[in-house]
Structure formats: C-alpha cells, structure tokens
C-alpha cells in the first residue's frame, strides 16, 4: 500500500509543476489521465504547439538517489505507449509530442527545486 503521506507529496509536486508550466505559457490539458495500462501525471500543450507528456517525481530527500533515476527504460517506453494512446483517443494522432520528466525536490523550509528534463526519449 502506498503511504498516504507519499500520495500527498506526489500530488503537491504535481501541483507545483502545473503552476510552473502555466508560468511558462503552456496549457495544461489534463492531470492524472489514467487508463488500464497506467497513468500520465500531466499532459500539456507547449506554446510551440508540441504536446508534452510529463512524469513528475517528487522527493523530500535525495537519500534514495536522484528522483529521475527512478525512471528506467521500461517506464519511459510505457510513457510513450500511453502518450500515443492519449493522442489517438483525442483525435490528435500524428501531432508532434514529447515525453518530459520533472524532478521536484521539496526542502524542509518549504521551498522547492524543479529540475525539468524535456524530451527524455
């Protein structure tokens, strides 16, 4: 069972990233889009017209390594399949898209560090 605290941490991290995207003039289309195969944390449309499928990893410490090290190639490929599924179901199949990953580090004093990696595939 995922601990309740971790779910809260994750949700907070996704909220932080959503605000970050909006500050960069991206349009957030969906959050926590879920199908049987998995979930995409955030789907956004960049100002340049590219769909971004974003995986958010939130941590309160780096004791278990860098947050993005938790994304391996299996996870990245699943992200891609999910992205194609989303595009197909929304009538955008064939549009430009990219997979992004974001690490959010929550510090004890309430501040956050955002490490945004675009187009990780």
């Amino acid at each position, binding site marked *: 069972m995922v601990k309740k605290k971790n779910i809260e941490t994750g949700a907070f991290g996704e909220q932080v990233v959503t605000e970050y995207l909006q500050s960069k003039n991206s349009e957030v289309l969906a959050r926590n889009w879920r199908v049987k195969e998995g979930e995409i944390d955030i789907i956004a449309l960049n100002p340049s017209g590219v769909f971004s499928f974003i995986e958010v990893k939130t941590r309160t410490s780096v004791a278990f390594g860098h947050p993005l*090290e938790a994304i391996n190639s299996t996870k990245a490929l699943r992200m891609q399949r999910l992205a194609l599924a989303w595009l197909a179901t929304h009538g955008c199949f064939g549009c430009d898209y990219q997979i992004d990953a974001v690490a959010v580090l929550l510090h004890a004093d309430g501040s956050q560090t955002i490490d945004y990696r*675009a187009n990780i595939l």
Partner: protein
Amino acid sequence: MSLAQAQSVAILGLDGHVVNVEVDIADGLPGYSLLGLPDAALSESRERVRSAIVNCGEIWPNRKITVSLSPAWLPKSGSSFDLAICITVLSAHETIAADRIENILFLGELSLDGRIRSVRGVLPALIAAAKAGIKVAVVPSANLQEAQLMQSMTIIPMEHLKQVLRWLRTGEREIAQEFELQWENSDTRLDFADVAGQSSARLAAEIAAIGGHHIMLIGPPGAGKTMIAERIPTIMPVLSIEQALEVTAVHSIAGTLTQRSPLSLLAPIVSPHHTTTRVAMVGGGAHVIKPGACSLAHYGVLFIDEAPECGPGVLDSLRQPLESGTITIARSIGNLTFPAQFLLVLAANPCPCGKFTGRGRNCTCSSQQVRRYLGKLSGPLMDRIDLRVQVEPVGRLDMARNELGESSAVIRKRVIAAREIAAQRFAGLGWNLNAHIPARALRTTFKPEREAMNFLHDELDKEAITARGFHKIIRTAWSFADLKGHPTPIMEDVFDAHTMRGKVEA
C-alpha cells in the same frame, strides 16, 4: 550540454593505440552509456568511476552521460581507462578546465575511494603515446618504475584521484622523488658453482649460451638437470637496454612485472609446468590476447622440466617460434605477433622410472616403455635441439671434492668473449648468434675446414644426420670454435658438435 575529451591507450598485442575518450553530458534521464567495444571489466568502470567521484567529494552529474572511446572499431579491455573516463566526465561537467587536460595521457584503475591502482601494459602504452606526440602522462604511482623507462615523456605519478584533481585545477603536486634508473644486472641467488661435477652438461650449457643453441638434458631424478637449467641465465650476457625494454614491454602486458623487475637486464627464465596448455605456451586467449610462456622467455630461457610428460601438441606448438623467433596468433580480432626469441632448455628422465642410465641396472621399465618415453618428443622438435646431453648421477668423487666448480661469473666472461668474436664475424650481416646463421651462408661463407666437411658429408650419405641436422652441427661447431679461439671450426669442433647432438633420435 557539454563535451570534453582526454587521451588514453588501448593495448592490442604488443602495440598500443591512442584512444580518445570523449564524454558528452546531455539533458535527459540520468544514465550512462559506454561506446567503443568495451569488455566486461571496462563496462564495470561506470560503477568505479561514479563511486570514486562521489567519494572524493565531487558531484556526479545526474544527466545522460555518453562516453565514447574512439576509434570505435578497436576492441578495448581492462580497467586502465578508469582515470581517463573519470577526468573527462568531470571536465565535461565543467569542474576541470578543458584546456588543462589537452594532450595529457591518463592511465590507471580507480578504486571506489579514489585511489589509483596499478595497471598492465604501461610501457607499451607510453611508447604508443609518445609516437602520437603526447608529452605528458599521468600514471599510477605503482607503475612509476616501468613508466620512467620512457624518458622522452614527462611522467606524473599519482596515488589518488584527489591529487590529480588538485594538480589539474591548481597546478600543484607533490613532486615524487624520482628514483634513478638503476639497472639490475646481477643475480646473487643462483651460481654455477653450486653444481657439483657434471662437466659435460656444464660445457653444453656454456655452448648453448654462446651460440643460442637449444639444449636437452637427459638424466635420472636428482642428478641436477633443473639446477643446471635454472643457472643458464646467469652465464648469458646481460641484455642491452633495447632488449631489456622489449622484454619489459612483454612482461608488462602479461602482468608479470611483479615477479620480474622492470629494470632487470638479466635474461629472463620461464619454466612452465608440464601440464601447461598450448595457449599458455604460445599465447592467446579469447578476448584479450596475452603473450604466452615462449614470449615471456624472449631473449632468455624457456625451461621445460619433464618434457615428455607435456600434453600432446604443447611442445610441437613451439616449432614455429623456434624457427622464426616470433609467434603470430590469429584470432577473430586480428593477427597479433609477439616476439619469441628464446633458448629452449628441455629436461627429461631417460625412462618412466628414471633410472635407465649407465648400465640401467635399477631400471624397472620394460624396453618398450623406455623406447616409448623419449619417443613422445616428436622427431621434428628433436631435430631442432642442437645439444642433447646425458646428465649422469653425481658420483662420490664429485661430491667429496672440496673446491667448488667454476662460478657463473667466470663462465659468463668466456661466453661474452666468444659472443664478441661471433658478433665481429657477423658484423653487418643481420644476425649475431651462431644459431641464427642461415643455411646458405653455412654452405658458402661459413664452411668449416675441408676435413670436417668431408666427415659431415659422409654422415649425410649414411643418413645418420638430416639436412637440418647437418646445418645445426655446423652452427654448434662455430660455437665450439669461438670458445676455443679457432678462426674456423676444425675437425675437433665439428666432431664435438656432432657428439653433443647425440643419438637420441626419436
């Protein structure tokens, strides 16, 4: 994001190839990929490099790191790239200025805490780097002695990654005390004076050392075959500096410099056990091709005790290097040639029980067993052995004698004098040992006296000797002549050579 490159060397056979280590740090998921045909040990470098960087208080870039070792087609192996990869990663991460590491060669294996460990093949690597115009090399402190042989380069010995980083950032380093190149040219442990009696075997050893003739010692257990064989290097002239460098390079690649000093001028002696395999004898291996025993014995002695006990084909695999002085190993990654100019010394018992000497009274073997035993040594191999000597059991007289036999130093002086005579005779001809006189020269320029020639021709007619044997006898006769000061071999020399070749025909 950023890019950096440094230099290292890959060893293929005896030759080094300068390898460019390039590191690119790109945005993307944290990861590490190593390109350029690495083997298992090299692929594991990732974990060593990462731990060393973190444990030295540096930051490991959590980005997509691509390390490329070019030329990409060249298979690379071993841990000697660790230091170069580590420095290049840090430089690509912009914690070391890129221009600081230009034209510097880095060699060394990293331990997890950042210490720099010794690696194999430092000398051949430096030779290759010097040819490529690299002037400065960072090497593990443990390899300093070997590295200093490369005097045209600035050698910077390092013990710890932290020292390297400090040097690259500030230019400061502890100046290691440069020890002088002190060549070792004497071995006090072994001396021919230890051998009691055995006058004919002693003479054979001396002739072998003079002319580079291969020798076989046959005798009962405990007669002193091994003792004599082990002392042959002590009567051979010391190596020239060029020869010593060649020997050190081979030993460096094989990783045997812990047993032999890199600065040794003594002729090496290698004595593989008789259970050795063909690959161990001539060199080889699947991924990394290593020199075998016959290359480690380059310019020295390859001593095989209990020769008839060797596995089938092991001794015969030496036939080609015996003729050419080199060994070419063909594997899927290419053909590699190692030097293998050695003096072969075989030792054998006369029969399985070992007591078939003299009248053979105590021997318990059947006559067929006796015949079969030495028959295991193939005819073509035996044909290449010039001196076949019976080592008799040591008698009471020899043991009781108070004065020691001649010492190695005395014998070596005679050997050097004889070799000098030969060297003058062969000046400008391309060889300098009697054993290397080509057959054509033996029949024209370097003929023995007429009477001796007639004797040999008679033997040839009687099929008592082969054509190869005919030439071999003349070569050995030249060594006898050099020892005794005859300008050309006379009948006596040829007769001695013929007798020493013996009748142990297989």
